């Protein structure tokens, strides 16, 4: 008999975890992992593989787990995915592999993400098998941006024997994985381990390097580099453009999360970067970023943390698990609500004026368009507001690279298969091409571009 439901994963009690920044889900034990692996039907169609943006051979790795050959399971995953400990934690599996799982048609789908995480964590406890590196090709590639796209491209290129230098503007490598996604969802030690593994392969990672300022792409290509990959992400925070938005206490989610994660403001004054969190915090937006901000606010001492989102629950773009975790922790949801003004005293925010919305016909995104209800204004008290309504392309590369084609939204135009841009030898992938998307898609783009660059260099 196949269990109808997924083997539950132990997690920190909500009442306890809102008081700390430790990881929330605690992972499977080996027995739990095997119990879950036994639920996999090993169906010949294996729709999960096609559901995975990097095409992990999911049935095969699950079969190895079932046989307790975890090392072989890890090796199977690593053939396709260089960051399994990250992806097992942050991928939106419910819309990818698990969304198409055959078992999921009748019961709960196999918990593929949890199994992936189990394998990756097992690997950490045991000796890691470092991938082989081809003999030196004599070629050098510059990778700009150390997010998932850039790190993946760097690893793939290095394995093919090319010398790779990654240029990162922040003081730490990882992109959103270090500055955006909170510790309680993705411990920074995991990212560091992955970055160290790349260094061990021989990838040179140079931090504090702003391409477009410290060097330009042109200079890199005129110098030692034969090709460049741009993975600079969607780091430019958007604001609502409503009055009062520049009052103190109104943060972009990027600033709020960067202060907390990258600068570790949650340990202030032991660390030097402060953050201001009032009793009542409102977060505007409905994606992963908004959930992360609202949950972080609770951990920083907010008494009330409220998500304000202009559509309804069904349209929330965040991963289901994040919404559920947020609710368990006491985050409140004000759906069908749109802020129209912030007001304050002495330069800091005090309250937020909102309108109620209703849903009309579907818009360009296929989701039902929110329409303001006339005369429905009301105010919410808040000492802190966090704007999480999306990010635009990071501007510095675009401003400094003459002739690079960008689209209407300012994203780099790159071939979907190869990542090639209109400039010879310059490739791009990840959020800087697609707009804000997912870790795994950025990794997929980095991998495809690395393959294309390899073909270019071998030719």
């Amino acid at each position, binding site marked *: 008999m196949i269990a109808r439901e997924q083997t539950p994963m132990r997690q920190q009690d909500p009442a306890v975890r809102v008081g700390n920044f430790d990881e929330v889900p605690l992972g499977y034990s080996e027995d739990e992992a095997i119990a879950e692996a036994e639920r996999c039907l090993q169906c010949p169609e294996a729709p999960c593989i096609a559901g995975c943006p990097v095409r992990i051979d999911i049935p095969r790795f699950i079969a190895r787990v079932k046989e307790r050959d975890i090392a072989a399971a890890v090796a199977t995953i690593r053939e396709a995915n260089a960051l399994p400990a990250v992806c097992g934690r942050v991928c939106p599996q419910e819309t990818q592999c698990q969304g198409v799982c055959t078992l999921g048609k009748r019961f709960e789908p196999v918990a593929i993400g949890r199994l992936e995480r189990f394998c990756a964590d097992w690997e950490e406890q045991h000796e890691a098998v470092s991938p082989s590196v081809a003999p030196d090709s004599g070629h050098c590639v510059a990778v700009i941006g150390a997010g998932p796209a850039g790190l993946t491209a760097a690893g793939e290129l290095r394995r093919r024997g090319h010398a790779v230098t990654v240029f990162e*503007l*922040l*003081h730490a490598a990882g992109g959103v994985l270090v*500055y955006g996604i909170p510790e309680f969802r993705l411990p920074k030690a995991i990212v560091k381990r992955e970055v160290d593994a790349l260094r061990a392969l021989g990838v040179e990672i140079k*931090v*504090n*390097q*702003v391409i477009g*300022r*410290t*060097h330009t792409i042109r200079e890199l290509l005129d110098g030692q580099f034969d090709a460049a990959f741009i993975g600079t992400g969607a*780091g*430019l*925070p958007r*604001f609502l453009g409503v009055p009062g*938005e*520049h009052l*103190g*206490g109104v*943060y*972009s989610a*990027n*600033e709020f999360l*960067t*202060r907390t994660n990258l*600068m*570790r403001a949650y*340990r*202030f*004054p*032991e*660390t*030097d*970067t*402060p953050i*201001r969190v009032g009793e009542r915090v409102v977060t505007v937006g409905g994606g992963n970023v908004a959930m992360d901000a609202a949950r972080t606010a609770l951990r920083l001492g907010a008494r009330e943390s409220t998500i304000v989102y202009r559509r309804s629950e069904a349209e929330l773009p965040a991963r289901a698990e994040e919404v559920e975790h947020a609710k368990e922790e006491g985050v409140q949801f004000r759906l069908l609500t749109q802020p129209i003004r912030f007001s304050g005293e*002495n*330069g*800091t925010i005090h309250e937020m004026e909102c309108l109620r919305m209703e849903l009309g016909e579907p818009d360009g995104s296929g989701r039902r368009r929110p329409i303001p209800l006339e005369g429905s204004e009301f105010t919410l008290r808040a000492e802190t507001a966090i704007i999480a309504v999306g990010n635009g392309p*990071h*501007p*510095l590369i675009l*401003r400094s690279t003459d002739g690079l084609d960008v689209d209407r939204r300012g994203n780099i135009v790159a071939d979907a298969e190869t990542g090639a841009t209109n400039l010879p030898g310059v490739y791009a992938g990840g959020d800087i091409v697609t707009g804000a998307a997912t870790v795994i898609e950025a990794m997929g783009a980095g991998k495809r571009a690395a393959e294309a660059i390899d073909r270019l260099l071998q030719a």
Partner: protein
Amino acid sequence: MYRILSKETVGPAIREYIVEAPEVARAARPGQFLVIRLHEDGERIPLTIVDTDDATGGITVVVQEVGKTTLEMGDRFGVGDGILDVVGPLGEASEIERFGTVICVGGGVGIAPLFPIARALREAGNRVIGIIGARSQEHLFYEEPMRNACDELHVMTDDGSAGDRGFVSDKLREILESGLSVDRVWAIGPAIMMKVCAETTRPFGVKTIVSINSVMIDGTGMCGGCRVEVAGAAKFACVDGPEFDAHEVNFDLLMSRQALYCEDEACSLERYKMRNPVGEERDQ
């Protein structure tokens, strides 16, 4: 690590450092800045690039000790020590052209960032009139470099202990009222000084450039913490600036945003001082 090549006290709680960062030195232009982080638990703070030396790869910064990070730098970071992170050059460089006659106004620690701009303006063929000011003679620094960089230099102190008594904006008004045709003004210093200079030049219709020192984190356009209102629109001081048209800047918003973390900053400073009771004397 970025090694400190030299360190000198140039005024009360004002020190000049030369830090080894050849890649930054090579690319830097007047008006640009750095972000530094002293150590693993440190804050990222912006500092203007005052000078560069291609031969040594050194960049000069002048730091006024106003809080925890700047004080700690003064106390604990000496020649040969390493600063963990230095990133730059950041921001757009000053627009240096042959304008004609330019007045460069510097107040307090703002004199240091003004210096490379004045020098570059003069090299570009402008007649450069400098006005620098401080509380008193004791607080005045960089007078010599400024004198060399300008065709004419006026010194102002609040108490008249050096140069003329009064504010830099008083001298600025005097010159503008004298009927001299002035093509552009640069004003760098505390926000309130820049605001007053902007109001001084506005009636004369002289385009005035200020360098906005809002609170920054990344310095690269990723957080929006540094946003200022310019001509009614939000601009990120770190990538769109730091220099803006003074007549379009909302200085009141800038000042209220600069004061956002006052309590935390005071707490951090107190804590630092308590733990480092000898720190301040050690280096004097």
